[in-house]
């Protein structure tokens, strides 16, 4: 069963358009959505949550086709968005008390593990916490009711490297249960590379690529050749190209090159976005 599915989603916002997005994530997997600012990552996630209605197409979330105003579905989802939306004058423990009255499956112990257990002062008002600690509280809110699906929008961006690493470990731990899935959007591609099973590239509202991370990394290599040598590669084997004063950097299909460096997801995204812009 798929944890989520976008089917031909289109959404217009003034001059911006999220165009014919089709994507799916099997249960038990982590999907990373990569894209520059304004690529449509947040819009795609809002559509998934039913906050924004698509102009065309439909989404399915944990088998439910209508996520908007679906209370039972929300019991099974944990979200962290860029705007946390938590009252700044409430203490962290009071936020836990509010959630206790919201979720049937709220677990105080889990909330404390992700707050107190990560050195967040429970007696401090949320508004007085550092950016990183605020994010930890948001993550605790998302985790505290034992969700089946986590949706994180730029959740790692406010965290220091150690806290980011801990979060990614928590996500990997979360998906050990094969019914649990995660969608993670970020422009910090290294984070996604570490945790995700599937990668989707969004660029200016278009889905450029959606593939298993390991397949992507196996399929392509990065090579550095002279400008003349670069011309000898067939265009259909070239994934991306960057001309520098010292030669040409190419990302090509593994079978087209005798040798090459392993390619990173960041390289793949940057080269692909440049190719698209060109």
């Amino acid at each position, binding site marked *: 069963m798929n944890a989520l599915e976008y089917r031909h989603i289109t959404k217009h916002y003034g001059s911006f358009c999220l165009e014919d997005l089709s994507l799916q994530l099997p249960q038990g997997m982590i999907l990373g959505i990569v894209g520059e600012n304004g690529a449509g990552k947040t819009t795609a996630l*809002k559509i998934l*949550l*039913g*906050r*924004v*209605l698509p102009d065309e197409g439909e989404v399915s979330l944990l088998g439910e086709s209508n996520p908007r*105003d679906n*209370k*039972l579905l*929300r*019991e099974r*989802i*944990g*979200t962290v*968005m860029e*705007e*946390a*939306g*938590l*009252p*700044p*004058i*409430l203490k962290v423990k*009071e936020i836990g*008390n*509010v*959630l*206790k*009255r*919201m*979720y*049937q499956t709220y677990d105080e112990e889990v909330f404390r593990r992700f707050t107190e257990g990560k050195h967040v002062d429970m007696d401090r008002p949320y508004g007085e916490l550092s950016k990183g600690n605020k994010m930890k509280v948001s993550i605790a809110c*998302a985790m505290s009711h034992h969700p089946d699906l986590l949706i994180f929008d730029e959740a790692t961006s406010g965290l220091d490297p150690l806290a980011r690493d801990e979060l990614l470990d928590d996500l990997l731990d979360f998906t050990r249960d094969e019914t649990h899935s995660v969608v993670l959007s970020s422009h910090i591609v290294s984070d996604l590379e570490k945790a995700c099973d599937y990668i989707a590239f969004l660029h200016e509202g278009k889905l450029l690529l959606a593939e298993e991370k390991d397949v992507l990394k196996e399929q392509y290599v990065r090579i550095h050749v002279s400008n003349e040598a670069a011309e000898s590669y067939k265009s259909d084997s070239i994934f991306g190209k960057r001309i520098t004063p010292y030669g040409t950097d190419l990302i090509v299909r593994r079978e087209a090159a005798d040798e090459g460096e392993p390619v990173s997801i960041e390289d793949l995204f940057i080269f692909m976005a440049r190719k698209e812009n060109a």
Partner: protein
Amino acid sequence: MKGLLYKDLLLICKQHLYILLISFLFVGAGAVGKGNAGLSIYGIYFISTVVLNLHSLEENYHWRTFVDSLPVSREDYVNEKYVLSIILMGVAMALFLLLSAVFGTFSSSWGILFLMVMVYLISVSLILSTEMIFGIQGRSYLRIVLIMAVVLLGVGALNYSGLVLEQIARIRILPAVLLCAGVGLFILSNRITVAIIKKREW
């Protein structure tokens, strides 16, 4: 909905100094006001300021985006605000009765209480629907101020033109009819707000 209500009541308790200040206005009104109608103006002021202040705070910290991740429907979100305003109305009425007794201004006519509830319901209906549909910040704030000004001027005019409110209260059936009209407007305002908020994207 109980979680939403708990959160709002918690936030109101956190602002106890502000609430005390408003309550002092009540006391002031009791001391210098002219009869029951004088106090009723401050009752409306009490409910309006608490509700508007809560809503303004919510807009600042983007509460709606968080609500949309909770197992709460948009209808619950709107209804909770209306239920809260009823609770605040109860508090305002209790304060009114207490202060009326303290200052010896309580009218023997129960009709005045019906009229007060009607005036509260009309004010709350206008204020809640306007602030939830249009928002409270920026230019929308002007709308709230205008509505409040109209309501306060209306009640104030009744108060200072020979306590007309108390005269109306003496006409037997009229207060009950006006109360029903207030309840009707309150329900209508709630249904319109729910219908509009359900369609909103945020």
